[in-house]
């Protein structure tokens, strides 16, 4: 049952998007987020929509999977939309006691909902096409200028990698311990809140013990291989910015420019 939890959503592939430098992907995702919030003219939205759509098509990620990421967002989107709809002043369309819907409200609600959905879609694209390992690699490299102010970029990335690596292991371990305690008659399913919390003790303690044991074993194994942190460490796989990266950057820049131009020069429909 615990195994059904999916963590990370890397969708393996070998498309141009998959092969992009993770650093560029992270930066472009951030630019894209900024772009979404720069859109003030609704005519800019098609541009903002076209960017991730094209990327999804190039990466050959099934659209169904893309929509699946949006599903859990629906309540939040609806909530935001409804709030905007009712609480923005402007030309009143409909009124009932203190509830009123304004044209501006509808406009803002629509813009906000689209922005959030595109935001999720855009960031999902990053995790779909980048394996967790190269993602942390990219983060490490992007943060490395901060090493000058003693920010532990390498250590942070290593911690993230190890944490990701151990999630499935710990889930499996939890499953095993739960089975073992159930075999001894532990009752995990019934009882009130306090009883259920108490019933977790026989699972949590062995889990912590084993997590610490694993941590110690891993630390020892790393030390045996002379691991000493990021200082002077070279990498087997160097990250290179290739043509694909520059082309993507150019496309994103063009998109951003288009949106800014639309904001400035095209009169808004509303």
């Amino acid at each position, binding site marked *: 049952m615990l195994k059904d939890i999916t963590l990370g959503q890397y969708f393996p592939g070998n498309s141009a998007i998959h092969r992009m430098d993770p650093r560029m992907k992270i930066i472009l995702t951030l630019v894209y987020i900024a772009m979404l919030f720069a859109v003030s003219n609704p005519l800019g939205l098609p541009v903002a929509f076209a960017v991730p759509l094209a990327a999804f098509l190039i990466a050959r990620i099934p659209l169904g999977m893309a929509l699946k990421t949006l599903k859990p967002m629906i309540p939040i989107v609806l909530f935001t939309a409804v709030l905007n709809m009712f609480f923005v002043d402007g030309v009143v369309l409909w009124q009932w006691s203190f509830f009123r819907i304004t044209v501006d409200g509808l406009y803002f609600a629509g813009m906000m909902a689209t922005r959030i959905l595109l935001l999720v879609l855009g960031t999902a694209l990053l995790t779909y096409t980048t394996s967790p390992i190269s993602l942390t690699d990219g983060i490490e490299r992007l943060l490395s200028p901060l090493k000058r102010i003693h920010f532990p970029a390498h250590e942070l990335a290593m911690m993230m990698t190890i944490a990701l690596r151990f999630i499935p292991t710990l889930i499996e*371990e939890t499953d095993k311990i739960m089975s*073992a305690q159930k075999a001894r*008659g532990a*009752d995990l399913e019934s009882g009130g809140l306090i009883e259920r919390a108490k019933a977790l003790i026989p699972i949590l303690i062995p889990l912590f013990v084993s997590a610490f044991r694993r941590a110690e074993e891993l630390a020892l194994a790393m030390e045996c291989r002379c691991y000493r942190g990021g200082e002077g460490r070279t990498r087997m796989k160097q990250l290179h910015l290739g043509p694909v990266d520059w082309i993507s950057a150019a496309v994103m820049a063009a998109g951003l420019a288009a949106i800014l131009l639309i904001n400035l020069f095209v009169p808004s429909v509303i």
Partner: protein
Amino acid sequence: MSIIRTEHLTHVYSEGTPFRSAGIEDINLEIERGEMVGVIGHTGSGKSTLIQHLNGLLKPTSGRVFIDGEDIWADPKQIRRFRFKVGLVFQYPEYQLFEETVFKDIAFGPGNMGLAPEEIERRVHDAVQFVGLSPDTLQKSPFELSGGQKRRVAIAGVIAMEPEVLILDEPCAGLDPRGRDQILGQIREYHEERGSTVLIVSHSMEDIAKFAHKVLVMNGAHVFDYDTVDRIFSRADEIEAMGLSIPQITRVFMGLRARGLDVPANVYTVEQGREAFLKAYRAKGGAAGA
């Protein structure tokens, strides 16, 4: 009446996804009360899946499990009753210890059964004796014991529930030869004194030949055979073909027979081998004192 019976027991993992795989398929089994059964089969043959059905930790995809003639899933709310009846010791059980003292940890199972404190205390002391721990370990923390001792504490934790069926999944994994002989010896003692049914899952044919009366061989989600040790080893070729080994001494004697020597085929332990060898030697007119 048989204590364990399964009817067309099937368990499918990840049903309805591309990862669908049969853990066990159409298992029809009858194990008599008081039997000492060795369960063997290589990784992925369905041993662990099967034993987790016998105490209701896994729910069959189809088919039924009867313990003592009762369908264990007749009332899912009563499933804990069968967990006390069929004690299951997992592989590396020492990783499930959690209490402050050994006593409390062993008492966890009996405590869940809702027994009176005096009864729990008696059972804990009995269990500790069975697994060969000294009573003064009872007040220690389980985390300060050695690996072998922890394993004993964990086994005692299940024995203290006094189950009618005791199932152990690889109870000797990771122990040294002396430790494994001790634990297997204590399990056999427990079996003989209590008369309870015992199932031991093992990779080692040597261990199974030494301790079990009957052998259940699993292969590719199916039961290959369930029979006495003699009859199972008479199919040695088939067993070796599925990647399981038969005891070395058995192979030696089979080789001797193949070379035309008149020695018995059912030799599974070195002691038996010695006897058989001396007998054959004398029959050939060798020195009587040899």
